[in-house]
């Protein structure tokens, strides 16, 4: 089945102004069928205003075995978080 209908990753934009979010994957023979299937599988409950589909094979992922060297070095650098500023009250929610 994967041979004739490869895997696609589906991204949905819930509202204008928000970015497309990964929601899951599906099988389809080509991009037209993938968009149709994404519409049927992932937008039945009014979840979206726009759909992207990407062949899963086109996605390059980081190596899980390299998670330590990739991500641990940032753990102790809390000064990179923008939490050391006093935000004036007039600015409101940020």
């Amino acid at each position, binding site marked *: *089945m994967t041979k004739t*209908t490869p895997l696609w990753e589906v991204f949905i934009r819930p509202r204008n102004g928000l970015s497309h979010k990964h929601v899951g994957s*599906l*099988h*389809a*023979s080509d991009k*037209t*069928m993938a968009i*149709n*299937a994404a*519409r*049927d*599988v992932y937008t*039945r409950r009014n979840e979206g205003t726009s759909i992207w589909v990407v062949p899963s094979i086109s996605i390059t992922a980081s190596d899980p075995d390299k998670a330590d060297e990739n991500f641990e070095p940032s753990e102790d650098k809390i000064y990179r978080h923008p939490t050391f500023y006093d935000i004036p009250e007039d600015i409101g929610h940020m």
Partner: protein
Amino acid sequence: MSSNLTQALLELADDNLILGHRLSEWCGHAPMLEEDLALPNMGLDLIGTARTLYSYAGTIESNNKSEDDLAFLRDEREFLNCLLVERPNVNFAHTVLKQLYFSTFMKLYWNEALNSKDEIIVGVAGKAKKEMSYHIRHSGEWVIRLGDGTTESNKKLLEAVDALHIYTNELFFDTPNNIYFIKKDILPSRKALKSKWEKEINSIFKMAFVPYPEFEGELSGGRLGLHGEELGHLLASMQSVHRAHPGAKW
């Protein structure tokens, strides 16, 4: 006169309900999960349209029937759907071809119905036209891929055309119930849609490498309540819960 409008509305509602039920039969049985959701999705569109039409038909009839009465408590001979929609699913090729035939017709129909002088009809048409556009896209893309796919898929599609095309002429029959309302600009003429329908089906058939069927002739009778044996089985299954538990609510 008002009972004629009831009958004309029942023709439309029955087409939508019966094909909607046929699509729901795929739930849990479709060839892939994506279609297992897509086919009942389309079924729900059709059943939604049927519900609005039944409710409307129930209010204009003097004995005040509910949509459930009309859907679940009429017998086979009282159903006025065309024969095409009650044809069994058989396989995926039959299912998507039937869907293409019907949704192409209904999109043309609802498009004309937008000019109706009846505002409920206009309301139904506005919503259903968009749904039909998607049904055409979904089923049309599948017809193209089955026709232009493997030897096996092409063969199955051609068998479906052989089996189903003969039922399509009935779609274009302006029944006596309709003619008065066509003249009054309340309902569109079905007959007038035929050449456009043939053109649209032909353009998809070309991409699917399906020769457009040349034969003349038709199988019809659904609009008179004369159905194939399969409708009885469908109704027995569809109506069983309501008949066993009259008045039951969710």
